[in-house]
């Protein structure tokens, strides 16, 4: 039985910030309450009751007490710590990137079960370590979907006519891809070109939204992700209205991995 003062929830640790001598402010994405920041007292001391449970990207069961200004973490038990992910520098950078996306798109104290579930699913996909880049893109796409920013890729967003299998113009203000006629009438200077290769993956994602992709479904697409990756990066920046901070390090370690 929980009192009103204490709430229990499953959560993912998104980030930490040192405060005071031995404390940290932990930002969780919780299943029942959305994004929550709470102080973990004494967590920086070796031998703290929290141990390693509040590490970034841990899936935890936690109980949090409401405080006057900031809440306090009472207890925290690890459900899954994604050990494989933590052994691979690129996977860590990718995990931190999706944590930053959730921190940016997730709302304070407003639960979004779907967002929590796709975050959890993506962390375990990253932990499996195969086709990680594909799973990040699938996460980004569904993040747009569950937070209400998903554009239209299948037909023209203005006249709803079907689109040929070719490059098209994407206009973020209009909310999707425009057919060549509508570009002349409705296109703005914010629009940019999106290649047929990117559109193929984006349409596959759009068709798959209501199904759970199996590990094999990445196969046909993994060699041709550069365009869709660039597209989602630009669109994420457009929605967030700023550069995401963790992309610099992510690009650096991905580059070093392949060179």
């Amino acid at each position: 039985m929980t009192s009103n003062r204490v709430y229990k929830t499953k959560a993912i640790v998104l980030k930490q910030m040192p405060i005071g001598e031995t404390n940290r402010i932990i930002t969780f994405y919780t299943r029942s309450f959305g994004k929550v920041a709470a102080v973990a007292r004494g967590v920086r001391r070796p031998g703290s009751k929290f141990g390693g449970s509040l590490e970034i990207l841990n899936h935890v069961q936690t109980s949090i007490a409401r405080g006057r200004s900031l809440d306090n973490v009472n207890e925290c038990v690890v459900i899954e710590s994604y050990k494989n992910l933590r052994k691979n520098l690129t996977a860590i950078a990718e995990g931190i990137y999706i944590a930053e996306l959730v921190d940016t798109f997730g709302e304070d104290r407003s639960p979004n079960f779907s967002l929590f579930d796709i975050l959890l699913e993506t962390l375990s996909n990253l932990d499996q370590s195969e086709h990680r880049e594909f799973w990040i893109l699938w996460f980004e796409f569904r993040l747009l979907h569950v937070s209400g920013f998903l554009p239209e890729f299948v037909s023209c967003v203005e006249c709803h006519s079907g689109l040929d299998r070719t490059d098209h113009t994407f206009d973020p203000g209009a909310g999707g891809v425009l057919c060549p006629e509508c570009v002349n009438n409705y296109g703005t200077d914010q629009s940019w070109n999106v290649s047929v290769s990117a559109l193929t993956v984006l349409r596959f994602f759009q068709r798959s939204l209501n199904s759970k992709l199996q590990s094999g479904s990445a196969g046909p697409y993994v060699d041709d992700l550069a365009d869709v990756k660039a597209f989602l990066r630009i669109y994420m920046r457009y929605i967030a209205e700023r550069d995401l901070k963790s992309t610099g390090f992510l690009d650096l370690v991905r580059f070093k991995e392949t060179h």
Partner: protein
Amino acid sequence: MEYSSGTPPVQRLIDEFSRLPGVGPKSAQRLTYHLIRMPAEQAENLASAILSVKTRITLCSKCFHITENDPCNICSDTTRDQSKICVVEQPLDVMALEKTSTYDGLYHVLHGVISPINGIGPDDLKVKPLLQRLMDNDVTEIIMATNPNLEGEATSMFIHKLIEPSGIKITKPARGLPVGGDLEYADEATLSRAIEGRQNF
């Protein structure tokens, strides 16, 4: 903050104190009134200590530890093992390791940790000077003593990738049970690392 000559000195001191980490407006007021009641000599000692820290302390040009002399006492001590470098996040980590008296090599202070979510990357740390040091000196072992958390580990892994091609031996301190603690209270991550890193009796 710019102060006009009309700002009352008491308010100015309160404002200055409240800029310090962990000091809120109430604590700043308490410290200020404590200083007002303090003998003038003590207050002058405090002021001169603050000034001398700011004017005499610099970073060692080799290891980036805080020091009065450049190179620092550790780097210029020829009895220390010059072939080992222990890489740490902060100067306070050097002080903690020095207290143990078990390490006799040199240090390298990164002055931070890679923290992508806060926009801190390797270029914001003293990583390049470390690589330069390895090229110029006969170093045979690097000990990566960053904090055992995700960002500390990521920093170690990143530097490890940079140094690996040189063939220099790279180690990290053991992870495991704290001395004096009870096994049953250790968390799973610590306990599994302790078992993995077990040693011959």
